[in-house]
C-alpha cells in the first residue's frame, strides 16, 4: 500500500491537502484536509449587519460577488425585506455572469491542463489542427495560419524557460490521451478564453459600479442608479453595452467552450466511470424569476437527489442543515458529534493534528479545519452537477434537452453523469443554459424600466431603530461552486452570530460523526493512479469539483504548516 500526499492541491489563498492510500493501482481510501482555520465568523461578530457583505465578499478572491449576495439575502430574510424587481433582475445578471465567467475560466485555466498536454501541442500540424477545429465548430478563428501563430507563440514561451501557468504540469504523463492537434486547439482556446473573460467581466463593472469588488449591493436591493434617460445613471447606452457583451459571451460558449468539452470528453470516456462519489446531490435553487421570493419561481430548482435516484426529487429546507466536528479541529459545547444547526453554530478552534512539520495525518482522528456539514444527517455533493441533476429530474425545459443532447453526442447513458466526466459536462451544460438565460433577464430588465419603474431598493428597514430587538435569517445562494448559506442572528442592531456553510465545505468535508466520508473523499475511491509520484488522476477528480479553499478556509494557521512565506505573493 502506498500513501500519497498532495499538498497544496488548490490555490494559494487557502490550503487543501489530500491524502490517499493506493492499493493495486487504485485509490482505496482518502482524506481531505483543510489546513487553515476560517475566522470570518469571528470578524463579523458585533458588527453592523448592513456592513456584513463588505467583509464577507473578501472571504474569497474568486467569488467576491457570491458572498456579498448571500450576506445581503440573510439580512433581508432576518428583517423580512422583499427587494424590488429591478434589483432582483440585476442580481440575476451579476450572478449569472459570474457563473459563465467562472465556469469558462475553470475549464480552460484550471481544469483543461489536467487533460490537455501543452508540450504535446508543440508537435501539432497547424493545417491538421485547422481541419479538426472546423470539423467541430463554426468558430471564425480556425485557419492553419492562426494555429501556426499560436504554435509559434507557445514555442517562444516554452523556450523562454519561464513557463508561468504551464509550470509544474505532468507533461508527457501516460494518462494524457489527446492527439497533438487537439492539444494545440485547446491551447489556442486557452489564450482566447483569457481575452474573452476580460470582456465578459465588464458586465460586472457596469452593474457593480466598480470592478473588482462590486460596490452596489445594499440590504434591501441594489445601490445602483438605473435610468435609461439619465446622463449620470446606468443609462440606455450602458444597458445596450451589456446586451452586446451577453451576445458575445453566448457566441464564445456555443462556438468554443461547448465543442471543446465535447471533443475532449470523447477521448476520455473512461472517466465517465471514475469519480462516482456519494451519489447524494443538493441544490438550494437560484435565479428568482418573479418577485414572490418563493423557490418555485427559481430558474434552477431547489431540491435533492438521494442515492442517484433521478426518479425522485426531494425537498430542501434550511432547518435540516447541521454540522459536526468529530473529525475537525474544533470543539462544541455538548460534544463534537452532536450536530449543530448554523443558527447555533460555534466557531471554536482546537487544533488536534500532528505537530508540524509532519508527513502524514495518519492516526489522527481530527484532521481538518473544515467542519462536516450534513443534510438530514446525510453527506451531500453540491455544484453544477448537483444543480443539473436536480433540474434534469424536475424535467426542466432547458436543462433536460441540453443534458440529453450531450449524452447522445457522446453515446453514453445517464449513469455517465455520476462521474468526474459528468461534473465537467454538467458545468459546460449549465454555462450554456445560463448564458442564454442572461439574454432573457436582460430583456426583462429593459422591459421593466420601460414601464417607468426605476425602483431598485427598499429602504424602509434601513434605520436599525426600525428593527426588532432580536432577529435571525438565512441567505441561500447557488454559487458557481455550489450551495452557499449564510446564517445571521441579530441582537440589539448588531451581529450576534454569523455562520457560513460554503460549497467547498460540503464537498471537501471530512468524515462525520458516523465516519462517513465527504464528497471529495468518496469520489476519489477507485480512481486509478498510474504513477504515485505524479498523481495526475487525483487532481482530475478533485479539480472536477472546482475546489475553492480560499472560501472554505480563510486563515492560515501557523500551527498547521510552514511559515508566513507559504504565501509570498
Amino acid at each position: 500500500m502506498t500513501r500519497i500526499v498532495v499538498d497544496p492541491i488548490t490555490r494559494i489563498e487557502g490550503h487543501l491537502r489530500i491524502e490517499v492510500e493506493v492499493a493495486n493501482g487504485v485509490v482505496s481510501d482518502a482524506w481531505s484536509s483543510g489546513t487553515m482555520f476560517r475566522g470570518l465568523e469571528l470578524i463579523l461578530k458585533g458588527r453592523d449587519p448592513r456592513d456584513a457583505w463588505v467583509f464577507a465578499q473578501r472571504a474569497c478572491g474568486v467569488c467576491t460577488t457570491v458572498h456579498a449576495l448571500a450576506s445581503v439575502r440573510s439580512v433581508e430574510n432576518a428583517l423580512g425585506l422583499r427587494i424590488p424587481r429591478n434589483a432582483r433582475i440585476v442580481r440575476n445578471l451579476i450572478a449569472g455572469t459570474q457563473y459563465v465567467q467562472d465556469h469558462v475560466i475553470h475549464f480552460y485555466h484550471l481544469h483543461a491542463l489536467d487533460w490537455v498536454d501543452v508540450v504535446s501541442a508543440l508537435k501539432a500540424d497547424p493545417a491538421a489542427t485547422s481541419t479538426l477545429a472546423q470539423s467541430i465548430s463554426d468558430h471564425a478563428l480556425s485557419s492553419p495560419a492562426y494555429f501556426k501563430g499560436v504554435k509559434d507563440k507557445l514555442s517562444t514561451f516554452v523556450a523562454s524557460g519561464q513557463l508561468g501557468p504551464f509550470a509544474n504540469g505532468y507533461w508527457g504523463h501516460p494518462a494524457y490521451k489527446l492527439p497533438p492537434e487537439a492539444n494545440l486547439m485547446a491551447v489556442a482556446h486557452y489564450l482566447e478564453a483569457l481575452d474573452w473573460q476580460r470582456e465578459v467581466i465588464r458586465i460586472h463593472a457596469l452593474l457593480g459600479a466598480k470592478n473588482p469588488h462590486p460596490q452596489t449591493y445594499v440590504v434591501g436591493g441594489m445601490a445602483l442608479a438605473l435610468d435609461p434617460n439619465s446622463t449620470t445613471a446606468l443609462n440606455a447606452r450602458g444597458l445596450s453595452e451589456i446586451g452586446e457583451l451577453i451576445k458575445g459571451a453566448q457566441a464564445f460558449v456555443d462556438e468554443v467552450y461547448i465543442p471543446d468539452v465535447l471533443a475532449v470528453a470523447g477521448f476520455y470516456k473512461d472517466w465517465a466511470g471514475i469519480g462516482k462519489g456519494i451519489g447524494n446531490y443538493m441544490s438550494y435553487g437560484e435565479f428568482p424569476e418573479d418577485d414572490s421570493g418563493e423557490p418555485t419561481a427559481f430558474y434552477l430548482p431547489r431540491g435533492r437527489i438521494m442515492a442517484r435516484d433521478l426518479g425522485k426529487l426531494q425537498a430542501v429546507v434550511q432547518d435540516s442543515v447541521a454540522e459536526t466536528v468529530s473529525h475537525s479541529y474544533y470543539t462544541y459545547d455538548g460534544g463534537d458529534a452532536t450536530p449543530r444547526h448554523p443558527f447555533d453554530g460555534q466557531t471554536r478552534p482546537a487544533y488536534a493534528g500532528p505537530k508540524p512539520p509532519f508527513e502524514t495525518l495518519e492516526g489522527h482522528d481530527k484532521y481538518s479545519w473544515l467542519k462536516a456539514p450534513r443534510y438530514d444527517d446525510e453527506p451531500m455533493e453540491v455544484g453544477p452537477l448537483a444543480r443539473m441533476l436536480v433540474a434534469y429530474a424536475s424535467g426542466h425545459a432547458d436543462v433536460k434537452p441540453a443534458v440529453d443532447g450531450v449524452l447522445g453526442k457522446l453515446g453514453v447513458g445517464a449513469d455517465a453523469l455520476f462521474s468526474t466526466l459528468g461534473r465537467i459536462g454538467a458545468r459546460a451544460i449549465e454555462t450554456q443554459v445560463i448564458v442564454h438565460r442572461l439574454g432573457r433577464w436582460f430583456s426583462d430588465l429593459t422591459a421593466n424600466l420601460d414601464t417607468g419603474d426605476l425602483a431598485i431598493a427598499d429602504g424602509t428597514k434601513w434605520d436599525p431603530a426600525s428593527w426588532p430587538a432580536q432577529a435571525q435569517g438565512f441567505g441561500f445562494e447557488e454559487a458557481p461552486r455550489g450551495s452557499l448559506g449564510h446564517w445571521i442572528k441579530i441582537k440589539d442592531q448588531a451581529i450576534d452570530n454569523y455562520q457560513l456553510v460554503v460549497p467547498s465545505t460540503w464537498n471537501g468535508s471530512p468524515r462525520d460523526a458516523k465516519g462517513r466520508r465527504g464528497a471529495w473523499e468518496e469520489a476519489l475511491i477507485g480512481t486509478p493512479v498510474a504513477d504515485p509520484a505524479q498523481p495526475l488522476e487525483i487532481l482530475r477528480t478533485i479539480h472536477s469539483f472546482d475546489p475553492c479553499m480560499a472560501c472554505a478556509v480563510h486563515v492560515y494557521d501557523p500551527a498547521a504548516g510552514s511559515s508566513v512565506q507559504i504565501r509570498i505573493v
Partner: protein
Amino acid sequence: MTGGTPPLVIGIGNILLRDEGVGVRVVEALQRQAAEDRLDVPPGTAFVDGGTLGLDLLHLIAATSTLILVDAVGLGPAPGSVTVIRGDAIEGTLAGHVSPHQVGVADLVAAARLMGVMPADASLVGIRPAEIDIGLALTPPVEAAVPEAIAAVCDELRRYCRTGTAAAAAPARG
C-alpha cells in the same frame, strides 16, 4: 510616459488576514491622499484595490502601459521592510509556492506576459509581513512601513512616467 495610458497601481492581498492585506491598505492610503491632492504622481494615475483576485484583474493590466503592484512579500531583513522588484524579476518573485496550474497573482502576471499585454514598465513594491492571522488591523511594524511603501510607489511612478524605460534599468532599492 512610454504609452498613452494612465499608470495603474494595484494593491493585492486579503484584508481579513492582518498584514496579508498591506497591499490593499497602501492603496487605500494612496486613494485618500490622491483625493486630497497631496500626491505628486502622474495625472490620471489609477489606484485599484485588487483584493485577492487573479485573472479578474487582467483587463486592467491589459489597458495600461505602467503597472505598480503592491503586495506582502517574504523579502527584506525584517517585518516592514520595503523591497522594489522591477520587470521580468517580478514573475520569479511571485511564482513561489504555487501548486500545479492554479490561478493567482503569479498566474495573472504570467498570463499577461503570455498574451503580450504585460507592461514593460512594471514594478512590485513588496512589504514584508510580520503576522498573517485573523484580524483587520496591520501589525505595528507593517503599519509603520506604509509611508515608506507609499513613497516607493510614487518614486516608481515618477521614474517611469518622467523618464521612460531607460531609467528602469537603475538598480532597485531594498
